[in-house]
């Protein structure tokens, strides 16, 4: 046991480059909708533990450019996220919150060396993506993941209204 610990410590000290960071890649589609009044959706992405508590906020896209923080008024419309995390997290959050995105496929990349996944204990999580659109609908898509797992994972899910194709790729 002690020899292993020593070896691990040695590896950390001497060979950091030999231990690539575990990576999480998410690809989310915001569908193009044919509606008379279109607003870009507010989108939140987070990792939940089995008891629904939030392990990490990955992204919160909202209207950050409205004057006097007006955009944050609608954050509660992402109902699940608001309850699980939003109402107790002052916005904006560096590296997590950002502007709304147009229709199309959007890529996000995280690793365990920095940002919201730093220090996240290995285990089973639910990746939850929630989208809410002003004068439109709301949809939640969730993908169960194992972080970081022992072999690469490719996972898929699909929304039916406010979210399109969701692809998750994990490299341990």
């Amino acid at each position, binding site marked *: 046991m002690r020899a292993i610990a020593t070896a691990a410590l040695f590896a950390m000290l001497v060979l950091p480059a030999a231990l690539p960071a575990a990576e999480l890649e998410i690809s989310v589609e915001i569908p193009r909708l044919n509606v008379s009044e279109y607003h870009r959706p507010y989108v939140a992405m987070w990792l939940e533990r089995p008891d629904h508590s939030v392990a990490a906020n990955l992204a919160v896209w909202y209207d950050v450019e409205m004057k006097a923080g007006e955009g*944050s008024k609608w954050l509660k419309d992402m109902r699940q996220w608001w309850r699980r995390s939003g109402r107790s997290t002052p916005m904006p959050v560096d590296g997590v919150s950002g502007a709304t995105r147009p229709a199309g496929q959007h890529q996000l990349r995280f690793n365990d060396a920095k940002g919201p996944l730093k220090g996240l204990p290995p285990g089973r999580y639910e990746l939850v993506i929630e989208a809410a659109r002003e004068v439109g609908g709301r949809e939640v898509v969730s993908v169960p993941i194992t972080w970081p797992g022992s072999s690469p994972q490719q996972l898929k899910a699909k929304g039916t209204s406010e979210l399109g194709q969701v692809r998750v790729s994990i490299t341990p």
Partner: protein
Amino acid sequence: MNLKLIGIATALTLCLAPSAASAHKTWLHPSATVFSDTGAWMTVDAAVSNDLFYFNHVPLRLDGLQVTSPDGSRVAPQNSATGKYRSVFDLELNQQGTYKLAVVNHGMFAQYQLDGENKRWRGTPAEFKTGIPAAATDVEVSESLGSVETFATVGSPTTSVFKPSGKGIEMVPVTHPNDLYAEETATFQLLLDGKPAAGLEVEIIPGASRYRDQPEEIKVVTGADGNFQVKWPHAGMYWLETTSTDELTSLPEASKRRLSYVATLEVLPQ
């Protein structure tokens, strides 16, 4: 019953409602109960009606309106108005946390005889001593104590506004009233004069009654600890009422005390 008496009776319904015998329901109906940001505004309708939540009977007077902010201070309502069927007011929510909106009624009601005629009087306990002529006979006095409430939260729910006063029926959350979700079970405690109220019957009715055939009321009874539980069948606004009668009046002249508690609660979808 002459016209004047009908007028008085209507006024009484406004003031003393809800009583278990009356089908009329007294309520505050908030435009929203969950807010992201300070500086948000809410608007509230206040009425007495047969159905929930429709304006089809009389407005609820706002004389007893008390809005308590998360830090305990009172918030003045704005743009108050009373119309034919409803009262309205606006509130600006400038603090993080939970607000309590309550229309509190503490009233006295008397029936008596004067010169061979039946008379009625209503007012506050303070007005009672001068309210009834000295020559009145057969005086029957009852006291009413009631609260009609709803709640709103900016950001995370807080519990400071639920500190009981120890008077009448009060609701203390176990589950926060701004944290209610469809298909989840909520627990609340009812207190009577500050002590757990055992055996109180609670009636819970979902709003939007116009659009369904059955009232779908939920009836529960508080346990020895004053607690009751309700599993919300679906999302929406719900009306909750409980009443009680006893002899624990605050004035020696009053023989009966009628207590009531009403709350409007919003249950959100999962």
